[in-house]
């Protein structure tokens, strides 16, 4: 914990009474939103897979999972929160600590963040600041330390701001991905992080414990990939359901998540065999790319797409709140400590399609991901989702559009904010886009 006698650089001293009042109000509203999201997801699929029940429960950010983490903490385990997918979760697990991602999807707290930073700042950042101010996020509050990877400008300063309240470890990410010096630099960051985690937890990361942690990730990636494969054909699962499963990984217990996801896939396999589709096979197939969308409030876009008239179904995404979490396995050759660390460094740097990178050919990896998805998952339209203030994603749109234009796949740039006020206008945009995809058959 931070020494509170040091004066805060950013965070204001909010009176306890105000914190408690705001926290209660926002928490109550959020619980309603979680319940409403789940209810709508249930409604979207009249015979929703049985296995989704587990994920509905784990989706309650104020429920079972945070209680489990609390119980582990009381037994002496450390919780290490992280703000970016570049944080090497295997090292955390290998030190017998609990990794949990703490980015905020709460709309209401972004307004509180406005007290510290201007409204032009990305709402994901403002909302995370606001969540900290009123101690809303159980996962952020229970984190004993935070890993912040300095990807975009927002993340860089967020790291400083949260440093007022938490022990925070920044990781420098090189901006040029495909150079040997970048990889060398990043490998040093990874090694340094290993030392830091070991010192903080008091647990040595051994060859055995790291191998086990990597194997946990491998099994999770296998289950994850199985789920995404099932979304290739005629739809057997609503996009929102799959997206919730994918995102829950960042706060759930990794081993249990893997079991439950495999169970879900078993169920879906039977549906494929019975040709038991979740919506008509000619429903427009949509992919979402762009700014991450964090549960629970920022579920606006997937809800609009899958409840629109005409309805669409999200069959894939390219987002760090979604498929990027687990898409790439750690490629270990020999299970020596050096080789495992090297494999972790490579996996977190090279496999990422984050727009914070550039390289000789620009962020070509992201373009390749999108083109491959369009082809293999039979995508009919792409929604390029950006929250205002998310500069890197906004800027990369032009390039993505060019690449998709070339293969004749429509892409729509949808910009929004952490607010519910623009749902009506967004609905018109989303529906017009889906109409465009279906017009060929209907009128």
């Amino acid at each position, binding site marked *: 914990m931070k020494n509170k006698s040091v004066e805060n650089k950013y965070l204001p001293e909010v009176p306890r009474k105000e914190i408690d009042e705001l926290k209660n109000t926002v928490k109550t509203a959020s619980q309603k939103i979680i319940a409403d999201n789940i209810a709508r997801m249930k409604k979207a699929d009249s015979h929703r897979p049985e296995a989704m029940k587990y994920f509905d429960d784990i989706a309650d950010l104020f429920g079972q999972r945070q209680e489990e983490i609390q119980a582990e903490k009381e037994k002496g385990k450390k919780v290490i929160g992280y703000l970016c997918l570049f944080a090497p979760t295997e090292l955390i697990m290998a030190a017998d600590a609990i990794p949990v991602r703490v980015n905020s999807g709460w709309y209401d707290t972004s307004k509180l963040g406005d007290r510290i930073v201007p409204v032009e700042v990305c709402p994901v950042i403002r909302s995370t600041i606001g969540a900290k101010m009123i101690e809303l996020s159980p996962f952020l509050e229970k984190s004993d330390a935070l890993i912040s990877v300095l990807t975009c400008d927002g993340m860089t300063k967020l790291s400083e701001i949260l440093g007022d309240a938490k022990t925070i470890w920044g990781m420098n990410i090189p901006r040029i991905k495909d150079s040997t010096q970048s990889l060398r630099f990043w490998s040093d960051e990874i090694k340094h992080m290993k030392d830091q985690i070991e010192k903080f937890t008091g647990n040595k990361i051994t060859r055995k414990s790291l191998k086990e942690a990597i194997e946990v990730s491998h099994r999770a990636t296998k289950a994850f990939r199985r789920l995404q494969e099932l979304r290739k054909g005629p739809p057997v699962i609503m996009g929102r359901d799959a997206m919730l499963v994918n995102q829950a990984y960042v706060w759930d217990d990794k081993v249990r998540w893997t079991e439950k996801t495999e169970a879900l896939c078993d169920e879906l396999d039977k549906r494929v065999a019975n040709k038991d589709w979740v919506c008509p096979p000619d429903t427009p197939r949509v992919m979402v790319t762009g700014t991450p969308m964090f549960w629970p409030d920022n579920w606006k876009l997937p809800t609009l797409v899958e409840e629109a*008239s005409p309805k669409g179904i999200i069959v894939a995404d390219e987002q760090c709140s979604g498929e990027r979490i687990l898409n790439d396995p750690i490629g270990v050759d020999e299970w020596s400590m050096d080789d495992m660390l090297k494999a972790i460094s490579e996996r977190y740097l090279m496999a990422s399609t984050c727009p914070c990178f550039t390289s000789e050919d620009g962020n070509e990896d992201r373009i390749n991901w999108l083109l491959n998805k369009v082809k293999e998952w039979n995508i009919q339209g792409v929604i390029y989702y950006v929250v205002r203030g998310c500069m890197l994603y906004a800027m990369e749109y032009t390039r993505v559009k060019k690449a998709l234009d070339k293969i004749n796949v*429509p892409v*729509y*740039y949808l910009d929004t904010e952490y607010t519910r*006020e*623009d749902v*009506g*206008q967004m609905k*018109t*945009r989303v*529906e*017009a*886009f889906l*109409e*465009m995809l279906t*017009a*060929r058959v*209907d*009128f």
Partner: protein
Amino acid sequence: MMSGSDPSKEEFWRWQEYHRIVPDIKWSSKDVITAGVDVGSVGSKAAVMVNGKAYSWGITRTGANSPESANKALDYALKDTGLKVSDLKFIVGTGYGRVNVPMANKAITEIACHAKGANYIWGPSVRTVLDVGGQDIKAIKIDETGRVVSFLMNDKCAAGTGRGMEVFADLLQIPIEDIGEISLTVEKEPEPVSCTCVAFAKTEAMGLLRKGWSKEKVLAAYTRAMAVRMANLINRVGLERELVVTGGQSKNRGIVSRIETILGVKCLPMPNWREDGLDPMVAGALGAALIGKALYEKAQKT
């Protein structure tokens, strides 16, 4: 053929509500009669088509209640035609209030409807449609059949829209229907106002009036700024000829001619809507009625 209320002298923003029946079209119960009801944020429009041909339409101001506005517009379109709502084989609701059109068989976005309507009004050569509505502007690329290829929409604010024009008509005390021509009477085009946000532009305009600018010059500066905004949207979606303007602001010569100057292209000519031509303000409702016909026929086949 015109009817409707006289614009009140005090309400400079008020535009004329009217309805029209196209002569020489006869209908019988065997015909495919469809309607489109376009409930916009400022105007509600309804159009009736007989076998895919425009037969009648009505334009009214949108009230506080969407379903009521929809009913009012459709009743207006049906007035003196002998048709009843029950004679309509298919009704499509569109516009901002499309989900609140009580008698509609289906809701379709105004983007698809304006695309189809522009194709109907001007023919298959139209590739770019600028729809300037009461509260938003949309630039739509379409193919030769009137289907949407891509589109862009402005932010959620009234800058550069019909509602903004109404505010200015009131501020400068110039009737809304004269505003376009009057904005073109300036000898030399002034610099556009720096901000199209209605609230800020109002303040800026008052400052210019105090500085001694004429009403015409202030109006020209504001209209210019709105036209720049619209031209930018068209450029972003990718201008391809032919270009047309639909929605209420298609009647604003000040806007349309400035867009033409900025982009360096001529729009297809405005139909003579005051007499016997189709009204581009009804493009959305016409498109909706046409889509209604297609959906009705598709349903008959299956």
